[in-house]
């Protein structure tokens, strides 16, 4: 028998995957990339619509909240804790809009892949497994969130929303905040039959969170009993981390504390999502 002198090349390995007999297994990276490839093809068809939205939504936000409301706040009380209102609100809105991207990417599309076009079922008939499908899709969502946040931050910077280069840290913080929502929402969506649950999520979870998690005013302004509630929400941690990151003088312990809580939400969400996906897709 011939002794192989070198490792088979990648091409030889992938060619053998379409030939009779046992096939060379896919690496973890290959499995996730295959799922991401599908989502890239999907995005390629839809990016024009979403890119316009990505540019317009920050402009509207900044014009109304930052510039309009900000002028009023700054004139009356000299900003929030000495920080001009625009610089106070922009890092928070960056984190908040990542939450909205998470909502947009983790509901209808995920339910569609489960129920309507059954894209997940197509994947699971191949060597891919539930975890591959989940990791691949979540990574694609994280990528989408990164691009959306970068656009938002670029627009905000043009409006003078940042005062320091440290604000670049808001990008990973926002993606982390978004994923702290996306991963648990994936788990939630996999338990839905129709879209009525999404309305509840939208009206009774996301909207109150945006209003009461310190995005537009410090949580200290809330009634005392509401403040601990804010501490339990990922958005408050995301907003606080984003502010800690953008303030020229980064408060590392505070920043890392909030980041750790966000990571906790992602971890718990992952645990739930794997279970929900398996229960829904493998019967």
């Amino acid at each position, binding site marked *: 028998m011939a002794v192989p002198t070198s490792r088979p090349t990648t091409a030889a390995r992938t060619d053998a995957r*379409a030939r009779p007999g046992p096939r060379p297994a896919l690496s973890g990276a290959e499995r996730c990339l*295959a799922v991401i490839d599908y989502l890239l093809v999907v995005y390629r068809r839809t990016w024009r619509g979403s890119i316009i939205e990505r540019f317009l939504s920050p402009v509207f936000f900044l014009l109304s909240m930052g510039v309009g409301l900000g002028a009023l706040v700054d004139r009356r009380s000299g900003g929030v804790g000495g920080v001009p209102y625009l610089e106070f609100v922009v890092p928070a809105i960056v984190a908040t809009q990542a939450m909205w991207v998470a909502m947009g990417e983790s509901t209808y599309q995920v339910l569609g892949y489960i129920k309507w076009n059954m894209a997940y079922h197509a994947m699971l008939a191949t*060597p891919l*497994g539930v975890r591959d499908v989940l990791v691949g899709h979540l990574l694609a969502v994280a990528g989408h969130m990164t691009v959306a946040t970068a656009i938002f931050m670029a627009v905000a910077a043009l409006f003078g929303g940042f005062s320091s280069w440290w604000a670049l840290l808001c990008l990973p913080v926002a993606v982390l905040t978004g994923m702290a929502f996306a991963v648990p929402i994936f788990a939630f969506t996999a338990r839905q039959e129709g879209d009525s649950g999404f309305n509840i999520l939208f009206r009774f979870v996301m909207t109150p969170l945006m209003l009461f998690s310190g995005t537009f005013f410090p949580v200290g302004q809330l009634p005392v009993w509401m403040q601990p509630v804010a501490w339990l929400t990922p958005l408050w941690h995301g907003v606080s981390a984003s502010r800690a990151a953008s303030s020229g003088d980064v408060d590392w312990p505070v920043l890392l504390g909030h980041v750790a809580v966000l990571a906790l939400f992602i971890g718990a969400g992952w645990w739930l999502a794997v279970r929900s996906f398996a229960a829904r897709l493998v019967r």
Partner: protein
Amino acid sequence: MSDGETTLVRARGLTKTFGGFTAVDGVDFAVTRGECFGFLGPNGAGKSSTMRMVGCVSPVTGGELRLFGLDPATDGPAIRARLGVVPQRDTLDEELTVEENLWIYGRYFGLSRREVRERAGELLDFAQLTERAGDKVEPLSGGMKRRLTIARSLINGPEILLLDEPTTGLDPQARHILWDRLFRLKRSGVTLVLTTHYMDEAEQLCDRLVVMDHGRIVAEGSPQQLIKEYSSREVLELRFDTDEHGEWAPELVGVGERVEVLPDRLLVYADDGDAAASEVHRRGVEPLSSLVRRSTLEDVFLHLTGRSLVD
């Protein structure tokens, strides 16, 4: 030679339950390399549940299942890498183009982008979809979508192709095109496992089949064997001017081997249908119409279960 080399699929006491409901109730079967093996049965017989276990997407509840000698519970991905699957309901992305659907699916099997493109070209030819390669899937006809699903299932050069009701809902012409493609695949050495509730499809395509009902296998053999074993050579179909065809059954005792009563006709099983027809006439029984035909799997099914396949 090991068992996994000639017997590609082996099931012993294979069972599937959903909650308290038993969809597949301890079935035994084996599929040999190169053959076309069928599951024939009515709605709810457990065909899809069985196919989904064989496709390693649905965990086995009980019994034993082996593909290529491997256990789906531990080697699911390795087995699926060697299968082609045409599910009962198409799982194409209708927003994407025909060729994008193929490329994407090939990537799931770990094929390179270059290879996926090469193979997609050949498969579109095979599925007679080359002209539609760049078109969106959504407006395609049902037959075209089905052919695309089959082309897609072949992207990894599968050794076994699982087809769950490949032609249900298609018009006769589309079905014949599809059957022709499946014949070609079989000739090229692909092992076919299919389910159907069309007896003509089973007769046309299957070398061997099992008849399923209520989650159980009630008979097994080649179409000819089954017909020989469970039916007569010919059947005399009689229609009467009545709402209750059963009323006429006593008049026909002894004409053939057996009489089956259907809502709209009576079936007399006899090796010589014309002789049976003469005998009916001699007894002075006057049906509205009478027809002699050869026995089919439909008759086998009727005999085994007392019900029609398609209701």
